[in-house]
């Protein structure tokens, strides 16, 4: 409950004094205290449940799988709630309209970097990829810069980062974020250099007329906190079954697959493992929540980090449904080039990390 006094202090200084906001701060303060308390008890509770209540012998494989599941599920869900809330609040500052305003008029190189970074914090759903693409292109944002955004937005997302942090630690999460951003910047820049505008469907540039003005919502701090709660409800409400399923498979691998079994197939020694991981990963479509727990278990059993990263990035970052949606505005040649360049970037990351670690 250590965080509660600070929260109360923050409330007292808060700019809004209407009763609804004050109640909201209070409730969030209590929720934060509860969060900390829960986070502290999951490890002992998982052990207690596995060994005492279920009476499983700690030496058995079943016990190891069950303890893993009972510990990881609440841990990941708790982290997810906290981070999705935080990101939801941050995202209330970055509407697609504002991101477009920041990007318009930027030159290519700096624009690519900015677009990749904004891809992380701008709310994005692949079903909105087309209107977003059109909205960017309409105001004259270069194609390559727009594509940098479209690569980073799905690949470097908060759900992936939470799961990586929770299951692998901060180093892997940071590596994933760094390399994901690098791929988005470079691939977008290369695609821009290739001058592929001719492979964008013709009507896109013809209909460039109306960069309509939409009134911005005016939000105070309490509204932004409400946005965070909304994000938790929406995102965690959607991904929790995947977290459960992913960790269940991961727990099975954790308990039953012998150590080192995968070293031969997915280890560093096998040079072909990285391209194979990408080839399998690109057509596969799963969200980060389902894939990362499985990947963590693979890593533990001897798969190499680079191979595993490459697999994860190609599953999360390049998805078939998004390509089909983008087909409305991009000719197949451009989509193929886009996938090819991003996949090449992922390969480089895979080999690089197999070489370093």
């Amino acid at each position, binding site marked *: 409950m250590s965080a509660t006094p600070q929260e109360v202090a923050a409330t007292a200084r808060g700019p809004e004094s209407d009763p609804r906001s004050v109640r909201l701060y209070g409730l969030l303060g209590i929720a934060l205290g509860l969060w900390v308390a829960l986070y502290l008890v999951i490890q002992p509770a998982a052990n207690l449940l596995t060994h005492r209540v279920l009476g499983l012998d700690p030496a058995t494989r079943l016990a190891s799988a069950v303890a893993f599941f009972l510990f990881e599920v609440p841990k990941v869900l708790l982290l997810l709630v906290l981070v999705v809330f935080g990101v939801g609040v941050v995202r209330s500052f970055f509407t*697609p*309209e504002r991101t477009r305003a920041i990007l318009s008029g930027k030159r290519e190189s700096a624009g690519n970097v900015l677009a990749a970074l904004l891809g992380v914090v701008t709310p994005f759903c692949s*079903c*909105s990829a*087309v209107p*977003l693409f059109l909205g*960017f292109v309409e105001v004259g944002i270069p194609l390559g810069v727009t594509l940098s955004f479209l690569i980073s937005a799905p690949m470097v997302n908060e759900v992936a980062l939470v799961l990586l942090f929770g299951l692998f630690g901060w180093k892997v999460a940071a590596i994933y974020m760094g390399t994901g951003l690098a791929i988005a910047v470079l691939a977008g820049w290369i695609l821009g250099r290739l001058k592929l505008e001719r492979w964008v469907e013709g*009507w896109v540039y013809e209909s460039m007329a109306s960069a309509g003005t*939409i009134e911005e919502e005016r939000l105070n701090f309490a509204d932004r906190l409400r946005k965070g709660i909304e994000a938790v409800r929406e995102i965690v409400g959607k991904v929790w079954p995947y977290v459960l399923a992913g960790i269940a498979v991961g727990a099975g691998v954790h308990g039953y697959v012998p150590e080192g079994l995968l070293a031969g197939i997915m280890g560093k020694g096998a040079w072909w493992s990285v391209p194979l991981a990408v080839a399998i990963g690109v057509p596969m479509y799963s969200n980060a929540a389902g894939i990362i727990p499985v990947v963590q278990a693979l890593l533990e059993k001897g798969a190499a980090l680079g191979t595993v990263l490459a697999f994860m990035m190609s599953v999360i970052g390049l998805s078939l449904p998004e390509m089909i949606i983008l087909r409305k505005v991009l000719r197949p040649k451009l989509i193929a080039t886009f996938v090819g360049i991003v996949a090449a970037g992922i390969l480089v990351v895979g080999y690089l990390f197999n070489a370093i670690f």
Partner: protein
Amino acid sequence: MRIQVLGTGCAKCKTLTANAEQAARELGLDVKVEKVEDIKEIMKFGVMSTPALVLDGKVRATGKVLPPKAIKEMLSP
């Protein structure tokens, strides 16, 4: 009153359409919610995230599914 929902047919767009219909019904308004699914038409509204809710030609919400209650507040003057 003219109610339009802009969206290319994703699950969220369907929910927003249903919510708008419910809001109109509860207020006793005799209007049909129009679905705008053609991307070129959607772009004419200058919207970058779908689904979006348009009332009398004015964009009132983008990129989120409003609950029926919020739509009712917008509908009643």
